[in-house]
């Protein structure tokens, strides 16, 4: 699952990961992530700053819920300073924007192998 308020980023990652053989669900809002009740993804790529929601808060919720806490979360942000707080919020990894797509693939592979 990709959750980012920037459509360009969501689209580009969607194309890339689809190209790599992943099934992608993408969303531009945090609500979609919070409102998941079934068909949970294998991994969530979660932006920190999204309108109406702080990705870190969403991450905390996911990690608190029994149903979702096992889902690996990679948080992405343009601010590297947020890495620590993201990790504290329960994120499994952090990626600073802009990122190298190869690194993203390595991290995904690492987390859902």
């Amino acid at each position, binding site marked *: 699952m990709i959750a980012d308020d920037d459509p360009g980023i969501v689209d580009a990652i969607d194309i890339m990961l689809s190209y790599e053989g992943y099934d992608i669900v993408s969303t531009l809002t945090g609500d979609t992530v919070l409102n998941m009740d079934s068909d949970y993804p294998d991994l969530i790529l979660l932006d920190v700053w999204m309108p109406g929601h702080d990705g870190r808060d969403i991450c905390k919720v996911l990690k608190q819920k029994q149903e979702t806490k096992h889902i690996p979360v990679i948080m992405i942000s343009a601010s590297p300073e947020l*890495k620590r707080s993201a990790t504290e919020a329960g994120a499994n990894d952090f990626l600073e924007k802009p990122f190298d797509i190869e690194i993203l693939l390595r991290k995904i592979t690492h987390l859902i192998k």
Partner: protein
Amino acid sequence: MNHSIFEVPHGGYRDVFYNNPSAQLIMSTDAPFYTILDVNQAYLESTNSARETIVGKSVFAAFPANPTDNVSQNIERTIFSFEEAISTKKTHTMSNYRYDIPIPGTDEFEERYWTTSNTPVLDEHGEVMYFIHSPNNVTENYKLAQREKAGVVALSNQRQQLYSVFMQAPVGIVILKGTDFFVELVNDNYLELVGKKREEFENRSLWEGMPEVESQVFNNLLQGVLKTGIAYHGSEAEVNIVRNGVLETLYFNFVYEPLIELDNRVSGIIVVAIDVTDMVKSKDQLKEAEERARLAVDAVGLGTFDLDLVGGEMITTPQFDKIFGFDKHVPRAEFVNAMHPDDHEIRIKAHQDAIKNGWIFYEVRVIWKDGSVHWIRVEGKVFYDDNGKELRILGTLLDITEQRNFREEQRKLTTLVDNSVDLMSILNLNGTNSYINKAGMALLGFENEEHVLETPIAKLHTPEDLAFVEAEVLPQVMQKGRWAGTMYVKHLQTEEIFPVYNNCIRIDDPVSGNPIAVGAVMRDLRPELAAKQALADSEQLLRNITTAAPTALWMSDESGDITYVNQTWIDWSGVDFTSSLGEQWMKAIYADDRQRIGDKFMIDLANRAFYEAEFRLNHSDGTIHWCVITGKPQYNNAGDFTGYIGSCSDITEQKHLQQQKDDFIGVASHELKTPVTSIKAYTQVLEKMLKNQGAEREAGMIAKMDSQINRLTSLIGDLLDVTKINSGKLQFNDREFDFNQLIKELIDDLQHTAGKHVIIQELEHAGMVYADRERISQVITNLITNAIKYSPESDSIIVRTSMQNKEVSLCVQDFGIGITKQQQEKVFEQFYRVSGDLQHTFPGLGLGLYISSEIIKREGGRIWVSSKVGEGSTFCFALPIK
């Protein structure tokens, strides 16, 4: 054969006659011829004559009288004896008469003395036939007797002379006999010496004549001489004698000479005494005078010297040596060497002048062994021989250090007084000044010293002020010895009346204690008053400035209590001045901030450190204002801490602007990076697709685009970091991590994009580091990418790590263009870029090393570079092991 009247045969009585040892002559009675009839051998020998020359001749022809003997009357006496013998028919003897005999072959006579008997020889008729003349040569006996007689006379004369000498000798002589020292003889001089009369002294024991002397040592001395026979010589012996009824102390030189008899027995003593009382007393007086002189010399601390100008020797007294700092006498050269090198010329000139003038005088410094400097004064007189040639200098030496110092102090004092900026004067009791220093003369308008002397003090005051001086000032000085206060004086030229502060003291005669003058030290108060006014004006101005200042000002004492706030603070806080002092000012601080800024103030106060803190103020307008307070430690002239002076500025507006800026940075960061992120993602997807389609050329172009996107990303990142650094917003998330592990990971990543460069790892044990792992990664990445960028001609770089002295360090070495010394000093500055030659230009904003440097500094580490142009550079940083 000689003719003989006797026909006597040889042998028999004739031989008896001839050989008779007594000289005999047989003579005829034929007066007046008295012919020699016969002579024996003894006669011939005793008269140096020969038989043939005398027999048959008149005895007087044979033995004529000595013509030079006019006194003996030998012939007459001989004839008389012949006649007596013939007439009396008895032997007649003449004794010891002179009858000289001729010396054969000469006209000379030998003096002879004879005792002669003329014996008549009678015939049977009783008539005289002839007579026998028997001369007995008694010359030797006679002369011996004569000499004895003369000796006796001479001895007698000598004795008489000795007695006279004895009696008239100019010394006292007394002859003592026996063990009780019986006075056998005493001369008048002795009696006079001891003041005795002859009848009281002579022919009795010495001690009977001088009982007062017996108990003194002389009895023992006399006994000693008597016993040993050895003379005793006394010198300047003190004797207490009653002379003419008065006990006197006299001094004698005397000799006790033993009288030694032929059997070596000492029978007595000759006492010879000379009265030397006057001499001894003179000597004592002389010695006393010398002692007094010496004491006088010592008392004034004078050393004396005797300089032999011929031999160069110098005799000195111990005081002389002491003044030169020596504890014993030393050769003259050492005295000279002890003089101050700068004063040698003075000494030399003084000696040259002394030869001409006969007197020497100079004052120089001497340096003692301990380094102290002393002033000495040399005075002396030159002595010359008969030819006017200088022989010696006798003189004195005085330590005048104290005098010199006193003179110097006096000179300084005089200089001080003369050049004092205050008036100093001495006022005589007649109302005129006897002295006013230069400053005083200028202050009061005196033209010269005569002007001072002739100007009464009445002219220096208005009548009212003069009345004050006479009624208040002078009486108090006279009664209490001092007066100090403000008074007014009048300038003699301009007649300006101006205030002075006058400090007067009474000067008393040091002997009588009576007042003789008034000393005054007077200070012109005009500059002081002007300065006070200026100070007051200045204070008022400063007060106005601080009141009007848009910044709050404050002061504290050394314990941190507020002692002053300006009106601005009062206006801001709404707390009045008094309530703002001490610790009350804290009440105006927003409650949440009080503890924090209060604690920081106490820490900075304890460390005497510059104080700076931000806080929120409960403003009097009811709003919260942000303020920054600063304070600088203050010290007095002695270097003691006196407190703080500080200010407080309202930074509410800056805070708002800062917040806007921070927000902008966040937004800009997000907004700039977001499109770049999507572009980069599309680019990479596209590149991958083209590659998969085999469109390598297009894929290559897309890869270059991705590379440029990476550059753009890096530039955006640097700009944002610099903005954060400058605004203090660069955040650090310190945690512990494995240093070498981080480096390995980074090199793994970077090696992919390093092109031809091989990144060689030379990693020693570095352990764990406590720092922001991401920021340190940023620094390492920056150093490695720089190394690659600036060494395009080489194909390797070396990364080294080590740990020592509680530091972990990393160095990245390249073999590139290198950096000059001047560039090395600036390479860590913001926006500084190392430029290559014409063939090489290097892209970038010049921010990477600045950001790295700031990160390392904020982690408490250090960063540096060593480089050589053309050989490459090594960039290093070290982090403390926390």
